[in-house]
């Protein structure tokens, strides 16, 4: 199969993720969109690994996964504590960190 298709798919996924991060307000959804973007990148890495015949890309993908897992832990914890204090998971409500 043409590896370009995988790349196109990953580009589509990445775009969806990006749009999701930009337009959605719910923190959980934003978070999921970020995961989507990460996985799109993983797909790209694996594809290139396949194309080039080296393992670098796959190793990289594992790294990303590990980071993503760690991120989920921290991120969800933050979202949870925000929700507890504010009774809302909207990212636009949390704008205290400004000028």
């Amino acid at each position, binding site marked *: 199969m043409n590896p370009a298709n995988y790349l196109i798919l990953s580009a589509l996924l990445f775009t969806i993720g*990006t749009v999701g*991060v*930009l*337009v959605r*307000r719910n923190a959980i959804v*934003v978070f999921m969109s970020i995961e989507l973007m990460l996985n799109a990148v993983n797909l790209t890495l694996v594809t290139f690994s396949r194309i080039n015949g080296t393992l670098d890309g796959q190793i990289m993908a594992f790294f990303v996964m590990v980071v993503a897992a760690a991120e989920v832990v921290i991120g969800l914890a933050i979202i949870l504590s925000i929700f507890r204090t504010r009774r809302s998971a909207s*990212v*636009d409500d*949390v*704008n*205290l*960190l*400004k*000028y």
Partner: protein
Amino acid sequence: MRVDPVLLAATEPGGQPIHYAAASGVFSLSWLVIVLPLAGAAVLLLGGRRTDRVGHIIGTLAAAASFVLGLVLFATLLGRDGDDRALSQHLYSWIPVNGFQVDVGLLVDQLSIVFVLLITGVGTLIHIYSIGYMAHDPNRRKFFAYMNLFLASMLLLVLGNNFLSLYAGWELVGLSSYLLIKFWEDRPAAATAANKAFYMNRVGDVGLALAIMFMFATVGSTSYADVFGAAAAGVIGYGTLTAIALLLLLGACGKSGQFPLQAWLPDAMEGPTPISALIHAATMVTAGVYLIVRAGPIFDGTQAARTVVVIIGAATILIGCVIGCAYDDIKKVLAYSTVSQIGYMFLAVGLGPAGYALGIMHLVAHGFFKAGLFLGAGSVIHGMDDDQDLRHYGGLWRYMPITWVTFGLGYLAIIGFPGLSGFFTKDRIIETAFDKGGTSGYLLGSIALLGAGITAFYMTRLFLMTFHGKPRWSSEGPAAKHPHESPVSMTGPMVVLAVGSVFAGGLFVLGHSLQDWLEPVAGTGVEGVHTFSPVVLTLLTLVVTAGGFAGAYLRYQMRPVESVARPDTEVSLVTFAARHDLFANTFNETVAMRPGQYLTRFLVWLDLVGIDGLVRGSAAAIGGLSGRMRRLQTGFVRSYALSMLGGAVLVVGALLLVRAG
């Protein structure tokens, strides 16, 4: 006939350097002349209150010891050959930097020894006088410490063998003078007068400092031997020589209270009277004359500078005389009299080698009679409970006979009564001025002659208003005065000085003794053609003096003197001007002080608003800018994400562009 070594050097091709014999024997101790009073000052200042009880004794002993040593040096010099009386002593290397080598060294020669004797002699007398005069002052120890410091500085000034030592002494006497003028520090007038004296002296010092720099740049040395050797050899250009001479003159004017820097000297009378006698009459203020005589080889090479010297001398004679007639403060009158007498000395030394010895002669005689007059004035002030106003005196001769006699002798000496010192010395200056020849000779001679007449007038006025006429004070009532004679410690020095005033002139002049003595240093005048025969001129001077005396006698003895001066609105324009120091202070204030104040205020403003404003302005601008910029931080995560995306797209776009391009 002896040959002047300076001239001898000049006649030799290439200008051989001047040699001073190395000091040996008793002369190798000449540094002690300076160190003794310096040690006295150090002991008294460092000793603090512990030395309060013996301070005056230590101080006086230090001065006396210095005087005795001076006498020994003098006696030894007398025993030496005429051409071999200049001895130089190298003490140590002071400022050695490659080509600039300045040593601390002493030069004992005919000129400096005369000054040493005058300074230590009169100084010792005034120390003794001060024991009585300052007896009730809680800070008497400090007073003696400062006086000792003054003696040391003044001795350094006259004994140094190079111009930088002279400069050091020059500024240090300024310091001593400052310290002593403001001795009664809680009087604002005294503090102001002291500052004024220091400032104006500093203006003169700039001149002296620049002269020294010129010498170094020209000759590569500041020692008398090198500079005078080069000057006498005529290798220094006329312009440079004139510049050096004029700068030296500026220094001399500052120190000696000569026009245009005369305004500080009368104010300096705020100091204790012994100081007025010692520093501001007999010794320090004559340093300018010393400088010009010492730098004779320089002035000899430049007629232009000399002309300026005589002009300043003549102008100052008149200024001092005119103002002296108008003041009612006994010390101020004497101060202006000092100004005018030093004008005579400047006139004399400006006339060239013919006048050098005359200037010194008048200086020494003046040292005696003016110190005596000031001490007498101090005695009168002491007896009149610190009242200095002539109009409050009158008829005092009955109450203080010794003061009357000694003051009277000093008075007769200064107006040139035949046989007394002033008669010999001033007379010769007038004569020499006329002998200069030409219109300028007549002009200068006439001014000097006129000055003699006015001097007779105002000194007679002073004398009559103080000691004669009806008393204008009362021994009863709230302002009761009880004039009394001063203690022996005060009258003693007065008597000695009076004796000096009587005989000094005769001693110096008869047989040309002082003139001959000074000849190797000062050179000798050409016995030129006399414009008037000396006898005629002496008679003329006497007539003018008598005229001045008669004027004052008619005005202040035959008619009663008011006890209050007429207000400014009722006096003639001349008197008005004279009472206001011929507007010298007004001039200084308008030209220097006020603009200076405005400039200072403007600069303070400029610094705060302009320069610092620029700095703070740019800081504020950056602050403001970042204030605007931080508005970008909205706190919305999604807008941050958008900007990140935008950034990423931009980077990728740029990369692609570069790749494609």
